C-alpha cells in the first residue's frame, strides 16, 4: 500500500472540503449562540402540551419577546417550550415566569440562561487565547521531543481538523456555544495525539532504516504499521461518541456532533495529511 505516493489526491480532497467550509464561513457565517452574542434562553416544562403560538400570545403584551424565537423543547418525552430572546434582567425573567405560571399552574422552570453581551465577547477572546497558547505550548513540546518541522506539520494538521469542524457547522448552520469551544479544544488534543503516534513511528523508523530506505518509504511504512491502531482507536472512540450522541440528553448533542466531525477529520488527517506534509517538506529540502 502506497499511501504517501498518492499524497496529491489527499491534499486535493482536503482542500476541496476546506474551501467549501471557508466559503460557507465567510458568506453564510457561523451561527453564534447565546454564549457568544449575549441574550436570554428560557426553557419551561408543562403537564399538558402548550403550543408556541399560545406562549407568544400570552407574552406579547410584555414586549420582552419581540423578535424572539419560540420552539418546542428538544428534550424527549417532555412537554416544554424554549424561548430565545434578548438580554433580560432577573425582574423581567420573573415577569415571564409569573405570566406562564398563572396560565398553566404546572409550569416548571427547566433552565434560564442569561448572558450579557460583554461576557460573550470575553468568551470569544478567551477561546482564541486558549487556542493560541495551546498551539504554542504544543509546538515547543514537539520541537523538543521530535523536530521543529514535525511541530509545524502537527499544528497545520490540527488547524485542518479545526477548520473542517467549523466548516461543517457553518454548512449545517448548527448553533455554536461554550460546549463547542470545549469540543474544539478536545479535537486539538485528539488530533495531536493521533498525529504523534504516527510521528513516533516515523522517528523510530528514521533510527532503524535511515540507511536502507528513503524518507518517503520509511514514512509510508510507519503509516501502514500504525494503521491497525489508528483504525481501532478511531472506531472505539467514535462508537462512544455516537452512543452519547444518540442516548445522551439534548444539551450534549452539539458537543458530541462537533467531537464526531473533528475526530473523524483527525483520524483522516493523521494518516493522509500529516505524514504526506512531512514528505513534501523533506522533498523541498532535498531539491535545494
Amino acid at each position, binding site marked *: 500500500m502506497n499511501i504517501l505516493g498518492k499524497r496529491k489526491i489527499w491534499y486535493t480532497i482536503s482542500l476541496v472540503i476546506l474551501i467549501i467550509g471557508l466559503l460557507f464561513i465567510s458568506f453564510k457565517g457561523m451561527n453564534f449562540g447565546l454564549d457568544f452574542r449575549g441574550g436570554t434562553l428560557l426553557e419551561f416544562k408543562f403537564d399538558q402540551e402548550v403550543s408556541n403560538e399560545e406562549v407568544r400570545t400570552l407574552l406579547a403584551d410584555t414586549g420582552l419577546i419581540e423578535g424572539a424565537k419560540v420552539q418546542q423543547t428538544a428534550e424527549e418525552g417532555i412537554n416544554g417550550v424554549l424561548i430565545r430572546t434578548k438580554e433580560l434582567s432577573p425582574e423581567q425573567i420573573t415577569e415571564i415566569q409569573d405570566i406562564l405560571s398563572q396560565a398553566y399552574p404546572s409550569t416548571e422552570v427547566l433552565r434560564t440562561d442569561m448572558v450579557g453581551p460583554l461576557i460573550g465577547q470575553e468568551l470569544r477572546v478567551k477561546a482564541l487565547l486558549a487556542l493560541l497558547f495551546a498551539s504554542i505550548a504544543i509546538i515547543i513540546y514537539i520541537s523538543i521531543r521530535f523536530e521543529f518541522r514535525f511541530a509545524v506539520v502537527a499544528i497545520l494538521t490540527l488547524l485542518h481538523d479545526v477548520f473542517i469542524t467549523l466548516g461543517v457547522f457553518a454548512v449545517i448552520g448548527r448553533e455554536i456555544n461554550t460546549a463547542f469551544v*470545549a469540543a474544539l479544544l478536545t479535537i486539538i488534543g485528539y488530533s495531536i495525539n493521533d498525529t504523534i503516534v504516527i510521528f513516533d513511528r516515523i522517528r523510530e523508523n528514521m533510527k532503524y532504516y535511515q540507511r536502507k530506505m528513503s524518507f518517503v518509504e520509511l514514512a509510508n511504512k510507519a503509516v501502514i504499521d500504525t494503521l491497525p491502531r489508528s483504525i481501532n482507536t478511531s472506531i472505539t472512540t467514535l462508537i462512544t461518541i455516537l452512543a452519547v450522541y444518540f442516548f445522551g440528553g439534548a444539551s450534549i448533542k452539539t458537543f458530541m456532533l462537533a467531537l464526531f466531525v473533528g475526530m473523524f477529520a483527525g483520524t483522516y488527517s493523521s494518516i493522509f495529511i500529516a505524514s504526506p506534509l512531512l514528505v513534501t517538506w523533506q522533498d523541498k529540502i532535498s531539491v535545494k
Partner: protein
Amino acid sequence: MRYKQKRILKLVFIVAIILFSYFLYHFYGINLGLDLEGGSHIVLQAEPTEQREISDEVMKVISNIIERRVNQMGLAEALIQREGRDRVIVGLPAVDNPNEAIKTIGRTAVLTFRNAQGDVLMTGDAIKSAKAGYGGAFREPVVNFELTPDGSKKFEAITRQYLGQHIAIYLDDEELMNPVVNEVIRGSGSISGNYKSVEEAQNDAVLITEGALPVPVKVVQSRIVGPTLGKISIQKSITAGLFGLLLVGIYMLIYYRFPGLLAAVILAIYGLILLGTLAGLGATLTLPGIAGLILSIGMAVDANIIIFERIKDERRSGKTLKASIDAGFKRAYTTIIDANVTTIITALILAYFTSGTVRGFAVTLGIGVIVSMFTAFFVTRNVIDLFADTKLLNSGAAFGLKGRK
C-alpha cells in the same frame, strides 16, 4: 522466586488501589455541577458611580454584604467568589424561585424616607433590625423594623414635623408605601408594601437589615438549571456512557480475543480509580465534565490498543511471548507519554483560561488522562504478566494474530 514475590506484591498493590478508590468514591461521593443537580450560577458586576470608583475595598464590602444576604435568606451551601477586578460569582443550590433570589441578592437596596417633595429625610442606616411579620387591619405580610437609639430620636423629630402629612418609604427607587403619619413614632414601626407573601416581605427585610451595597451591581450572567433537567441529563449521560463502554468492550473482545477481555476488565478498573480520584480531589462533575470522562476513557482504550499492537508487532518478528511483552511495553511507553502529554497541556491551558462548565471539562479530562497513563503502565502491565504463562495469551488468536502458533 524473587520475581514471583515481586509480582504478587504488585498485584496486592493494585487490589489495594482499587479498594481505596472504591472507599473514596463511596464515602466522599462525586460533587455534581449545577447542570446535573440543578442550581444557579450568577455573575454580578459592580458599576462605578460618580462618587465611588471600584476598588478592592469596595469589592470586599460587596461580597460580604452579598454573603450575609444569602445566609439570611437561608440558602445553605451557597458559594460566593470574587472574580477579576469588579465581579462576584454567586453559586446557589436548587431553590424554588432562583430569579426572585437573584433580585434580592443584587439590589443596591437603600431604604429612604422621603417627604412629598421627594427630599430624603432619613435613610435605612437608622434601622437596627427588620423582620417579616403580619400586621395591619387585614393581617397582611409586613416588614417590622426597630430603630437605633439615634434613629429613634431622628424619626421622632420627623414624625412630629410631618404629623398629618405623607411620608413615602422607598427601597431604591421603588415606592413601598406612602402612608400618612398618624402619630409620633419612636423605637419601632412597620412597613406594609402590598406584599403577596411573607417570603417577599422577608426578602425586603433582609435588604433593609444587611445594608446597602456601596455601588450598584448588575447581573451580567445568570445560569439557572432546574432539578428536573439535571436529573434527565445525568440519567441519560450515564446510560449513554455505559452503553458506549459495553460496545467498546465487545469490539475489543472480538478484535483482540483474550487480551481484549483483559482490556475491558482494565477499563472497568480504570473507571473505578478515576471515580475515586475525582471524589478524593473533590472535583465537581459537570455535563461537559462527563464528556471529558468519556474522552479520557477513549484515550485509556487507545493506550491499551497501542500496547497490544506493539506486542503483536514483536510477535510477528518471531520473538517469544515474554520477550514480545517486554519489548512491546517498552516501545509503547514513549508513544503513550508523548501523545498524552500534549493532551494534558491542552487541558491545563483550557482550565486556566476558562471558567464554569468548560473548566470542569478540562479538569476531568486532565485527571482522566493522567489516571489512564497510570493504568496503562502499571495495571495493564501486571495483568498481562499474570497471564503470560497461560495458553490464553500464547495462542495464535490472542492479540488478533493470524496464522501463528
